[in-house]
């Protein structure tokens, strides 16, 4: 151990995950925005349109994938900002758990919503 700077890496994979989800987001987000707001008359889908859109199984998978990716990107970002805002080192695992839990709840809610609408 030199001068107290350790080599432990609890959070070092997070940058790579952030980058990987970011890359995935580029096509998924483009699809989401264009499909839902640009190729649609009036810029928004009415209820029937939404239901039929989500009825397509490929679209359903892609939208759920989008939800998972965007949520993990967002949670990693929130965690990184919280760490930068001075969360002490020993509280960091708790923060990680908290954002993970929030992310899981968010995704679960989104999936429930998707299923409810397209049913």
């Amino acid at each position, binding site marked *: 151990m*030199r*001068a*107290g*700077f*350790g*080599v*432990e*890496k*609890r*959070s*070092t994979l*997070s*940058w*790579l995950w952030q980058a990987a989800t970011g890359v995935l987001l580029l096509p998924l987000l483009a699809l989401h925005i264009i499909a839902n707001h640009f190729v649609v008359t009036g810029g928004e889908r009415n209820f029937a349109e939404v239901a039929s859109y989500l009825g397509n199984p490929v679209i359903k998978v892609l939208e759920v994938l989008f939800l998972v990716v965007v949520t993990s990107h967002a949670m990693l970002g929130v965690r990184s900002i919280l*760490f*930068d*805002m*001075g969360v002490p*080192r020993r509280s960091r695992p708790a923060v990680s758990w908290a954002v993970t839990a929030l992310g899981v709840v968010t995704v679960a809610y989104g999936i429930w919503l998707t299923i409810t609408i397209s049913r």
Partner: protein
Amino acid sequence: MTEEAASIDLEVLRYRPGEQARLENFSVVVAAGAKVLDALDTIWATQDHSLMFRRACHHSSCGACAMRINGRERLACITAMADAAQEHHPIRVEPLHNLPVVGDLVVDVAGFFARMTASDLVITRTAEPELPVSVDRLPPPLRLRQVVVAEDLGRFTRFESCIECGICVSVCPSMAADDGFLGPAALAGIHRTREATRDPMESAHLLALADGDGGVWRCHSSFECTASCPQAVDPAGRIMSLRGQIVSRRWGRLWRR
């Protein structure tokens, strides 16, 4: 500009631990061509011996006089009074950010130097086939001549370009947020040491340090360190290069498994 001496105003941050920081105004007569450090020396010699500031070489090789001048981190010894006076009136002089202030403009570099020690950077190294740092500043005809230097210089050594002034630590937004971060200079030091060392254990240890909790992944790519470095060390570029090395090593491991 005339050769005459002129009176120039400065406001200098005065501070002692436990007291409120305040800006104190000084007017000082300096010669044309004087640097900010000359002005501080003059204030110290003629007006106030209690003014605390670090200084040694007065020619940008020791790194002691790094401070914020008009809100920008610079070496006071090579910052012209005339230029600083045009930017802001009065010239504002403050200590570096992100390091504890001992008094007035003096920061405690102990934590910073401990990081440099962790990087194992030795300040002498074998010379590269070009004269370091100066290379970009050389006027083009001189640069052509430089190419000749490439041959036969294996026996020469060089001091590292990094003068350990702490400017990159002061400008770094990640450093401002995370006190476990090794910071730009130390990470650049790790990159340099890995270039120079022939010891694979040393090299692996340093890469692990760079990949660790206080390492390269805490950098937020603002490139401020590279933009502000008075010695063209390019810490950001070296941090990114370390990331590339880490990623390719991990990638390689993934497939060997």
